[in-house]
């Protein structure tokens, strides 16, 4: 007969499971060990947010995959330079903003399809439709939601880059102060860009409806 020498008590782990690690701990662990599981966890936490930010920022789900990939690979190779006092999400979106800017500048240079609306009409194909996650709502509600999203995407798509940036970063949870620090401008400039942008979106939505 076996005797449990710990009196049947399990040792409460001093080792945290990966899901309990904070962003900073994950970054630290990845930098130290280069173990992909830590990076995969970071990706799992932010992949959807990042991908959606990129889609809206560059206005193209197809090209978003390339930019998305570039962002993560840049993050992976530059994590040594990540300063602990910043939130990882801020660092991620800082890299993403720059990657989107580089991508759009490249398109502008080529003078090829500088602005491609996210939503394409039926003659253009159905890629966009396939990329939208399927919701649990009934088809009618789902259609309404899709229409709203199309209107919003169009409205965001025509905003000047500065306003678009602030609105999208704010939508991803960054505070105005954090955006101001990232953009190295005053908080008042950021607020002003945001207000102008949101007003334009509101106008676009009210016109379309």
């Amino acid at each position, binding site marked *: 007969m076996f005797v449990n020498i710990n009196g049947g008590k399990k040792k409460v782990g001093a080792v945290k499971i990966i899901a309990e690690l904070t962003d900073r701990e994950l970054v630290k662990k990845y930098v130290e060990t280069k173990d*992909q599981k830590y990076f995969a966890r970071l990706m799992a936490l932010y992949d959807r947010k990042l991908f*959606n930010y990129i889609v809206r920022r560059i206005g193209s789900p197809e090209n978003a995959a390339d930019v998305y*990939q570039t962002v993560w690979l840049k993050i992976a190779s530059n994590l040594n330079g990540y300063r602990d006092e910043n939130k990882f999400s801020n660092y991620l979106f800082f890299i993403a903003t720059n990657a989107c800017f580089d991508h759009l500048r490249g398109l502008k240079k080529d003078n090829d399809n500088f602005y491609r609306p996210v939503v394409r009409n039926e003659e253009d194909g159905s890629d966009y439709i396939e990329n939208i*996650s399927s919701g649990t709502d009934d088809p009618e509600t789902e259609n309404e939601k899709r229409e709203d999203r199309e209107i919003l995407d169009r409205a965001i798509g025509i905003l000047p880059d500065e306003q678009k940036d602030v609105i999208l970063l*704010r939508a991803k949870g960054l505070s*105005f102060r954090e955006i101001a620090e990232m953009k190295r401008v005053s908080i008042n400039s950021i*607020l002003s860009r945001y207000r102008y942008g949101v007003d334009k979106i509101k106008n676009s939505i009210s016109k379309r409806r």
Partner: protein
Amino acid sequence: MNCEKYNNMIPEYISGELEEHATTEFEAHIKECTDCRVNLETEKAVLAMTAEDGYDVPEGLNSIILSKLPVKKPAFRINFMRYAVAASFFFLVIMSYFMFNPSVMNNSGSEFTFKTYSVLRPAALYTNDYLIGSDYDELITYKTELYDENKWTSDDTDIFQSEDDLINDLLTLEELESYDSYLSSL
């Protein structure tokens, strides 16, 4: 009512960055002002819609990215402590061999000279311990005689450079036997 002022507060109110006294003032205003309340709700709705993550990350894309991540090369780590201990041990073994075996190392004055030929003469290993406590003068005399009379059988006659050499040097077993018979004949 100054609605423009309160409308400007909406973004910071939503993000929670409005100062406490301004928050109290703003909340008191929107209770009274329907237009500002509608504006607040509209702005919240726009932000919520913008924040909505309606696009799925293409399937397999994350795996592709993970496969492209830099892999940590197995570092060529030298465990200095381990090597240092091994080297010290090796050094001690070698040194003790020389130190406790004067047949290999000859201390003449401050200089150490190695006489490797001694290592090649196993019989000679017998001799030094045997001679300790003997009458060195007699031994010297005997060896000198042997040398003078060309009775010395070793080819390495050049080893007799000094008295120290003579004492510390080794004799073959035959030479010892010869010395024993010499001593007993006295």
